[in-house]
């Protein structure tokens, strides 16, 4: 990637206010949020539940229009969902149950016309091998474990080679052991291809482990509290613990205490 492309943000969110309606009230999910995601970022959006982080991700995905402000992807305004921003959801039912693993990965390539027909099989296979599921390529989703289903969803999104990968708490429904392994695998995949990912989570530990840059949101409505740099995976335990305490203080303690810890 050239230096000039690194200088322009891939995803540019400015003054974005998001609201949604429930049957009896209008809820402001985020208020005037600004942030920029640059190519190759592992950009984590972190906040307690109710800070509108999932709504924010869906807005980038094009499912939800902001009432104020705008979202730009490579300089063009985001209007509707599209295959240039592939989503990985938390739910296991995001795979099409009537298609095998291979067909699930291949289908968006064919449906969106993002890839020449003769390359589909090869690209599908490469993506499945990357997540280590070649033995299950012809199984149906209901035969797979939760972790394997999420791997298929990641393989499906990566095969599309989207501009940005949007992950909405993809490991939240997994057991603790599987979650740790999936986080390691995601980092390995990233060091292979250096894709850009926006990753939503409510776990501070996961944010520090997965992210290269962390956006902290306050709850009700979500506003930017801070945008921090994370630590490399080989950072020493003391530094990791300090960052975790600092984030924890910013999210949960009084603002004055947070400043004291940060200093």
């Amino acid at each position, binding site marked *: 990637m050239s230096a000039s492309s690194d200088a322009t943000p891939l995803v540019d969110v400015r003054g974005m206010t998001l609201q949604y309606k429930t049957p009896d009230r209008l809820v402001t999910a985020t208020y005037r949020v600004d942030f920029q995601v640059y190519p190759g970022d592992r950009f984590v959006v972190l906040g307690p539940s109710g800070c509108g982080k999932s709504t924010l991700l869906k807005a980038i995905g094009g*499912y939800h229009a902001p009432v104020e402000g705008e979202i730009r992807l490579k300089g063009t305004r985001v209007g509707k969902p599209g*295959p240039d921003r592939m989503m990985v959801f938390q*739910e296991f039912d995001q795979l*099409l*149950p009537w298609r095998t693993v291979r067909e699930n990965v291949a289908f968006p390539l064919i*449906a*969106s016309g993002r890839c020449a027909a003769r390359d589909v099989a090869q690209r599908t296979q490469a993506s499945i091998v990357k997540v280590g599921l070649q033995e299950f390529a012809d199984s*149906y989703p*209901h035969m797979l474990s939760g972790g394997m289903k999420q791997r298929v969803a990641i393989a499906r999104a990566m095969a599309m080679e989207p501009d940005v990968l949007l992950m909405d708490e993809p490991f939240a429904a997994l057991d603790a052991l599987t979650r740790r392994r999936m986080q390691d695998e995601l980092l390995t995949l990233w060091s292979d291809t250096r894709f850009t990912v926006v990753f939503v989570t409510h776990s501070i530990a996961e944010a520090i482990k997965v992210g290269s840059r962390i956006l902290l949101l306050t709850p009700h409505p979500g506003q930017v509290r801070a945008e921090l740099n994370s630590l490399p995976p080989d950072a020493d335990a003391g530094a990791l613990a300090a960052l975790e305490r600092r984030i924890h203080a910013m999210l949960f303690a009084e603002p004055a205490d947070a400043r004291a810890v940060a200093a």
Partner: protein
Amino acid sequence: MSEGSILPRPEIVREPVAAGALGVVEKPLSAWERATNIGALRKFALLVGLALVWEVYARWLNNPLLLPTFMATLEAFVRGVVDGELLGKAATSLRVLLIGYALGIACAALLTFLAILTRVGTDLLELLTSMFNPLPAIALLPLALIWFGLGYGSIVFVIIHSVLWAVALNTHAGFLSVSTTLRMVGRNYGLTGLRYVTAILIPAAFPSILTGLKIGWAFAWRTLIAAELVFGVSSGAGGLGWFIYENKNQLDIPNVFAGLFTVIVIGLVVENAIFRWIEVRTVRKWGMQS
């Protein structure tokens, strides 16, 4: 707290017994167990049992005008099949049935397609379904006779009416129950309109659609046989309903039973062969139904 409050306990480490020394870890099921696992075989055994009850009761009653024995019915059935009369009547009925069924499904597809694309379409479907679904198809027959005359047109019309609402209601309910995640996945791929419906909604709602098709099929049969009982005389050959009616008039009760028996056999074959075949290759294979 003081350390003495919990008794010091030794750690326990064990070596598992080698699998070979355990005795049976895995063994094939016996022939009887495997046989009782086959649904078709269990159902066949039930059928034999029911036939036996019928035979015994009919012999005890000893009144062929009220209830002929199972063997007499089977004999009449075989006779009818061999001389081709029953097969001819069944073919006539099936032809009308399939035309009405196909047209009914086509109308239902059109209505539900409108219903998921527009809000007016949804309102229209809900309104029409709640108005016409409770209306027995046979109640429309007098009207149909005036509109389409004594003939296949009238029967096809009432069959469409009986199929349309059941299929439309189930299909629409199925579409509504497709999970938000799957809908978002479809839109993420950039699918819209007809491609979105065929690639995402129809397969995702297939269990409900299949139920609708089964109910529609049963409704179509009921309506057809009932309509043929009312008239059949003028439409030349006539179908199974007319066959039943005619034989009742001639007090040939075994033949009446043979006619009913044919309806039952066709129902069993369609349910257990055709719909079952579709089910095994779709919803069961996809793990949407156990």
